[in-house]
């Protein structure tokens, strides 16, 4: 097991290196002079020269790349161009607000989706199942932006059930700002999740062991909740990790709309300001998080499913 984890860890090194190359090529080479992109319309030669010196754009490419690798390892991405703050400070400030929205919303969604998926799969072919599938496809087809605008306009602005947007640091105040985005989040993601889990669970119900379990006289509930559920955990876990990137997309829009000062809001602002160093740092950071998430799933697999070989 230990060897397996170490090998998996070593496997991530070429991936991280590749990510560094892609991001570096994209930002520092494809787009032309980064300093020009940052100053934009207000370019003058002196300002550009200053920027080049500050961010090291005047050095040879290879030296800049080594510098970037160093940033990844030390987690020191320098200063933001727009806010002049240390980027690592901005990230650690944004982490709390982001997490207090995404984590509960994500777990709530997954929990509800698994339960609904199970119920729907249990009644497969009946009207409950059919209407749930229709609901899911409809729900998936409504644009996320429409959900958010509708919720913010009707539930918050017209009916006054929730604050329209905002955020408080104190935990006792914070939750009331998070309830509406959280509800919307769950509604937005439920369609896709329920449909996916339903399929995953239904695929298991055709397996031989299910027939065996029935043949030996187990009740349908026992077959379902003991045997089928356990075996459908593998695709469920995979899906949960695959959703992490979608989670970030969600976080973007939700944080932006509801004024939650998390990582997503910081990134949207950085795009608006052409704040090149921040966008680059965020892209790197999320890629690293994603690789970490994948690693965690691989290890989780071996705990959940003994059939996954450690080779």
């Amino acid at each position: 097991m230990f060897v397996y984890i170490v090998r998996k860890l070593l496997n991530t090194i070429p991936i991280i290196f590749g990510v560094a190359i892609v991001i570096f090529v994209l930002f520092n080479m494809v787009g032309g002079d980064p300093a020009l992109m940052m100053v934009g319309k207000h370019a003058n030669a002196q300002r550009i020269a200053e920027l080049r010196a500050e961010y090291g754009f005047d050095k040879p490419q290879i030296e800049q790349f080594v510098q970037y690798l160093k940033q990844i390892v030390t987690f020191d991405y320098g200063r933001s161009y727009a806010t002049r703050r240390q980027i690592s400070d901005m990230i650690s400030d944004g982490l709390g607000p982001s997490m207090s929205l995404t984590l509960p919303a994500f777990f709530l969604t997954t929990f509800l989706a698994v339960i609904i998926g199970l119920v729907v799969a249990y009644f497969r072919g009946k009207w409950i199942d059919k209407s749930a599938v229709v609901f899911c496809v409809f729900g998936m087809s409504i644009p996320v932006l429409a959900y958010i605008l509708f919720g913010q306009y009707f539930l918050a602005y017209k009916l006054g059930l929730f604050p329209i947007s905002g955020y408080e640091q104190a935990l006792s105040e914070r939750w009331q700002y998070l309830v509406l985005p959280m509800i919307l989040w769950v509604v937005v993601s439920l369609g896709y999740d329920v449909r996916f889990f339903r399929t995953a669970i239904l695929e298991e119900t055709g397996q031989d062991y299910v027939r065996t379990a029935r043949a030996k006289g187990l009740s349908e509930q026992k077959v379902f909740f003991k045997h089928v559920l356990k075996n459908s955990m593998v695709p469920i876990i995979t899906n949960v990790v695959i959703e992490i990137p979608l989670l970030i997309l969600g976080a973007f829009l939700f944080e932006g709309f509801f004024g939650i000062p998390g990582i997503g809001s910081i990134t949207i602002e950085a795009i608006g300001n052409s704040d090149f160093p921040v966008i680059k740092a965020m892209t790197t950071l999320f890629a690293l998080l994603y690789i970490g998430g994948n690693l965690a799933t691989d290890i989780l697999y071996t705990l959940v499913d003994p059939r996954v070989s450690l080779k």
Partner: protein
Amino acid sequence: MPAAQAEPKGRSLWSDAYRRLLKDKLAIICFWIIVFYAVVALAAKLGWIATPWDRAVGPAYSPPSFGAFELWLGTDIFGRSVMYKVIHGARVAMSVGLVSCMISIPIGVSLGALAGFYGGWMDDLITWFYTVLSSIPNILLLLAIAFVVGKGITAVYIALGVTSWIGLCRVMRGEFIKHKNRDYVVAASSLGATNASKIFRHILPNVSHFIIISLSILFMSAIKSEVILSFLGLGVQGQPSWGIMIDDAKLELARGVWWQLAGATAAMFFVVLAFNILGDSLRDALDPKIK
């Protein structure tokens, strides 16, 4: 198992799938919805309908009225027809779907075929490459490319084209690994078939149904991504887009102006719904395992 299975004359996967698809009324409706969007988009592109979209047709923010066609969805802040903007939004969305698929599908198919067929270092390299790309969350990669290439519709084409081939590439690689040692391929190579002919003439036709299925998914995701990119200000510039219309609606809603949001949302909803349902039906019809 129905008795019809015993009939001696074989049917190809395609004719079989076509028959099954024809029975699926809902899928046929969805297909025609998509064709309708495509025709509208083409007509708008050629200037036959909804032209010019940027001319004032009434006072600012006049609500929908069932008089002239151009006023069915009311007007926006400059008095322009929201209906025309929705139609031109469809043109932008369909063109983004089409062009990004034309970029991503060839990349996905050829890289997947190479990796799966040749294996070895080729496979390692391609697998490494798409693992790296898929590690960078799609939306950030999209934003980064759109940011770097410069705002505009070309950036959207490129960003979507070069980020969305990974799923298809994975599937193709897996299928080529499965198929390359099948009897028919071994037979072909003992008859002296070259690698190129094995890949293109023998294996590719047998796995091409995956391309059709992913086409519908890719097209739909491209439409959705275009809306979000445009909404964030990185998408099309100076042209109507459903994303920009929804962005405008953010401020308009508080003044009771709902028609721009409703128009863009409804237009997007129906095309995405049609792709969702058609994609499912295609998968059911083309998957030889489900009968």
